[in-house]
Structures are given as C-alpha cells and as structure tokens.
C-alpha cells in the first residue's frame, strides 16, 4: 500500500535534538519534501548555519557543510560559483542571517547569487538560551531584554525581506509561517518556488518562515503557534514580497 504521508527520502531516520514544538524539524521536512519532489537530492549542497539548526547536517541525507556564524551566504557563494549546475541552499536563523550575517546576506542578494535561502525567524537566539534577536518583537522579554524590548534602547524588529526587495539581483522573496496546516502548505509552495527560481537560473531567492520557539517564548507549543497567528504576523506580514 502506498503511503499517504511518510518521512521524505532526504530526511534521515533519526530523532532531532529540537525542543518539543520547535518549527525547525517541520521546516527541515518541508525542505526535504521539496527536494525529493523536484528530484534534486543528488545535486543538492546545503550550508547549515550556527544556531539551533547547526546540526541540520545530522538530519539531511544530502551533502551538507557548515559555515562560520552568519557567513553562510558567503560560503554558499563560493560553492555555487564553482558548481553552477548544483543546487545550493542556505538554512539560517535570525541571529545568523539578520544580525551577525547581515552584510553577507545583503551582498549575496545584491550580487544576485543563484542560491536559495531558507530564513527561519523565531525572534530569539535559541541555541544560546533565548537572548534578544534583531527580529524580537517590541515588548518581548528575553534573556537579554529583561525589561522588554524597547525601540529607543534596543531598536526595532528588522524586516530583512522588505530591505532586500529593493535589490535588483533579488528575484523572489516570500514570508510564510507554519502555525496551521494551511500555512504549512503555503510554506512548502514558497520553498518550491524559491528552489525552482534557482533551478531556472534566475537569481537570488529567499523564504522567511515565521516559526515558533515555545521554549524561549515560555509558551506551550500550541500557544506559541497561536502567538504567531495573533501577534507575530502583524509585525511580519505574510505573503510574496517580491516576484511571483
């Protein structure tokens, strides 16, 4: 009997280290489903970030490598330029991409590097213990914004996609979430469009996935999903930011 729903071929049959209700495992799976459906597992090279997803290479059954914190798009640039026929994507968290690696992501986009970027935005640094990220919402308490994030002291939540939409080299940008099955389907389709953009040789693309961090939001997994729907997507509106 054919299976209606099973673990994708590109996802290793091992448990992940992620906390209960963490979005990373789900997004890893969506990436793998798209890779399997496009039939590109054997030509895929993934660049994992530093952060919670640093162990992504333990879960993906294709070529993977690490990059220093935030340098992920620079490493991907080196790989893709030498192997233009391979499929190269980075998987980055908001600390990796929107803080320490801001220069690398913007310039990779500006050069129109033909890479795909999966940007997982959960508004905190998970791996190091829930510190404030550039994407943390105003009013949010974290390990390093104990009196709530204040605009006049800690600045505003950064919207990387909107910033990058002005760069001509950037072809496709979409923000999605995973708080419901409907949004999960949309996220998968966005990942597919991003990957297809690269396969068509068109240029830089990125999908920002608004994802829960129940542990450092101090919410149950279900309440963390509700918070995204009620609160987070007001700051980070979902939809295609650039491209079609």
């Amino acid at each position: 009997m054919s299976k209606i729903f099973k673990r994708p071929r590109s996802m290793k049959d091992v448990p992940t280290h992620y906390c209960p209700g963490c979005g990373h495992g789900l997004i890893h799976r969506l990436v793998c489903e798209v890779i399997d459906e496009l039939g590109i597992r054997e030509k895929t090279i993934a660049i994992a970030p530093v952060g919670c997803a640093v162990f992504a290479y333990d879960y993906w059954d294709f070529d993977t490598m690490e990059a220093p914190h935030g340098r992920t798009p620079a490493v991907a640039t080196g790989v893709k330029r030498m192997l233009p026929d391979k499929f190269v994507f980075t998987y980055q968290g908001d600390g990796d991409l929107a803080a320490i690696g801001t220069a690398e992501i913007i310039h990779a986009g500006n050069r129109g590097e033909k890479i795909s970027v999966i940007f997982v935005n959960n508004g905190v640094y998970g791996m190091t213990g829930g510190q404030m990220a550039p994407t943390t919402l105003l009013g949010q308490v974290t390990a390093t914004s104990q009196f709530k994030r204040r605009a006049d002291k800690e600045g505003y939540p950064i919207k990387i996609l909107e910033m990058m939409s002005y760069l001509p080299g950037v072809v496709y940008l979409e923000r999605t979430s995973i708080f419901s099955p409907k949004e999960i389907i949309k996220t998968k389709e966005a990942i597919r469009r991003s990957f297809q953009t690269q396969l068509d040789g068109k240029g830089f693309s990125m999908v920002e996935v608004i994802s829960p961090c129940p542990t450092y939001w101090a919410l149950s997994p279900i309440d963390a999903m509700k918070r995204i729907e009620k609160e987070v997507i007001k700051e980070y509106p979902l939809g295609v930011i650039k491209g079609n």
Partner: protein
Amino acid sequence: MKTGTKTRIDAERCKGCELCISVCPKKLLGKKGKVNKRGIQYIILKDADNCTGCALCAMICPDCAIEIK
C-alpha cells in the same frame, strides 16, 4: 466514515508537543499517560476507526513521528 487508511504514531519519535492534537478535525488524538524511553508522554490515536487519514496531524508534526498508509 472508514477510508481504509492507517495512522501510525512512532512513540519513540514523539516529543509530546500536542500540535497534532490541536489540528485533528475529529479530535481523535490524545495522551494516555504512557511515557516513551525519553520519559515523554507520547500521543496516541484514541479512535482509529474514525480516522479519515486526512494527514493534518502528520503535516504539523515537527518530528516526522506520524506516518499514514
């Protein structure tokens, strides 16, 4: 309504996050107090007969713990 599908939950893979419970349209999933090797109360399908195999639970599971045949 029986659809002939079979939903299998891998108790050892389950982290008990309950996201599947929240999306099941027929509220067929739950916990029974049983724990897996990691000490986590895992999710079980309480009423297999009424499961339609819609796969929403599998879709939202962050741990690939649910398989539907």
